[in-house]
């Protein structure tokens, strides 16, 4: 009869295969199981497979050359989770979702198409230290608010539910956004786009209702009166980096789609709007 075998007696290649099929979190936990598992669970062979397969090709589009000596694959993973890398002449950023290792991108305001964006009396472009990009777009005054962004779907991780998000702030003097909900839309360029009602007024967050002045209350009632039965409103949330975000819509990347994913924000109401500061549109896996 064959002798009894334990997990750590398997060929190292098999153990690498096994750990690569777990998650980044599991691989980190395995480091504490025993010295043997630690040596495999932090190896480049394992983390190379926990990183997206096209990771290095995306990094080759980065603005700054990679630091030397090159970090271990595990260090690279965590650095990409915590510090987005600017790619495509600094007009997009690339990072990883720590939990899943799936790819995240932010399209800078410069890379978005903003209606009236080139007309200084409507929009201005300002350097902004808190932005990861060189500059941001500040809305001076428009009636017609329309922002569109797109990204090649082949860049996204397969079998992943993505959410597209407008990353913004608003100035102290912002106005025009509390009156009416705008429209967010996400979908393939060639396909149907799902739309939803979005709120860009940073003072209006979900569940915040008490202690408002009469005007805000009236506005809120106006917004809420537009709410249909299945017509949920999507409110801004504070991000970990201090910016605000409002979800524009979701997209399931099955890995087989082609073409570009389009995202848009529209508020074509007839009143004037001002004070929105746009960093960009982020596309990241949706936490479920």
């Amino acid at each position, binding site marked *: *009869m*064959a002798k*009894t*075998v*334990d*997990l*750590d*007696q*398997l*060929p190292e*290649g*098999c153990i690498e*295969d*096994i*750990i690569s*099929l*777990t*998650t*980044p*979190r*599991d691989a*980190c*936990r*395995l*480091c*504490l*199981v*025993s*010295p043997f*598992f*630690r040596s495999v669970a932090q190896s480049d062979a394992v983390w190379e497979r926990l990183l997206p397969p096209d990771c290095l090709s995306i990094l080759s589009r980065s603005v700054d050359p990679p630091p030397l000596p090159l970090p271990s694959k595990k260090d690279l993973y*965590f650095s990409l989770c915590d510090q987005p890398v600017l790619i495509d002449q600094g007009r997009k950023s690339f990072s990883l979702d*720590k939990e899943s290792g799936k790819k995240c991108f932010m399209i800078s305001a410069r890379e978005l198409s903003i209606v009236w964006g080139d007309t200084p009396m409507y929009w201005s472009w300002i350097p902004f230290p808190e932005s990861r990009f060189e500059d941001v777009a500040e809305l001076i005054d428009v009636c017609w608010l329309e922002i569109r962004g797109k990204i090649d779907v082949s860049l996204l991780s397969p079998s992943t539910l993505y959410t597209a998000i407008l990353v913004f702030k608003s100035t102290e003097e912002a106005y025009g956004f509390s009156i009416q909900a705008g429209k967010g839309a996400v979908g393939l360029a060639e396909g149907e786009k799902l739309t939803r009602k979005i709120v860009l007024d940073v003072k209006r967050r979900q569940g915040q209702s008490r202690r408002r002045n009469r005007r805000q209350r009236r506005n809120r009632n106006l917004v809420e009166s537009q709410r249909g039965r299945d017509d949920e409103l999507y409110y801004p949330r504070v991000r970990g980096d201090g910016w605000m975000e409002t979800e524009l819509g979701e997209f399931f990347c099955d890995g087989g789609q082609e073409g570009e994913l389009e995202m848009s924000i529209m508020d074509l109401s007839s009143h004037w709007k001002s004070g929105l500061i746009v960093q960009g549109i982020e596309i990241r896996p949706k936490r479920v």
Partner: protein
Amino acid sequence: MSSSSTTTTTTRLLMLKASDGVTFEVEEAVATKLGAINNMVEEEGSEDLICLPNVNGKFLGMVLEWCKKHANNNTNSDKGNDEVNKWWDKEFVMDLDQNTLYHLLMAADYLSGTELVDLLTEKVASMIRGKKVEEIRETFKIKSDFLPGQEEEIRKKNSWAFE
């Protein structure tokens, strides 16, 4: 596939001999699902008896059983067969004890049965995913032999995983 015109109607049989002397008579189409055997058949051609000194008869039998199912299910390739294979794979690994699982994995790895390796490694990975360190040690009967203080240091370095 074969350049020989005589093998088109009759299926060639191979004899596989395990480390403990147990022999298996298998159709070539079944055995060549294993990369290592496929290579031997292509390189050595006429040899009908193949000795496998690294695989015990019990596990070789199980590996061949898996190959047979997959060879049969793949003869007419449509989507339904994918489902059948998946269902059958699930059954195959469901009740394996760890010792059998590892022996099969070593046999599949040695015989270059890539698909079977994928199936078995995924099974082991599913036993690790989402578990705490203590649970992993318990499941796999692993003794931690870190030096004193070392664990604390590793835990600090990987603190995110323990949040």
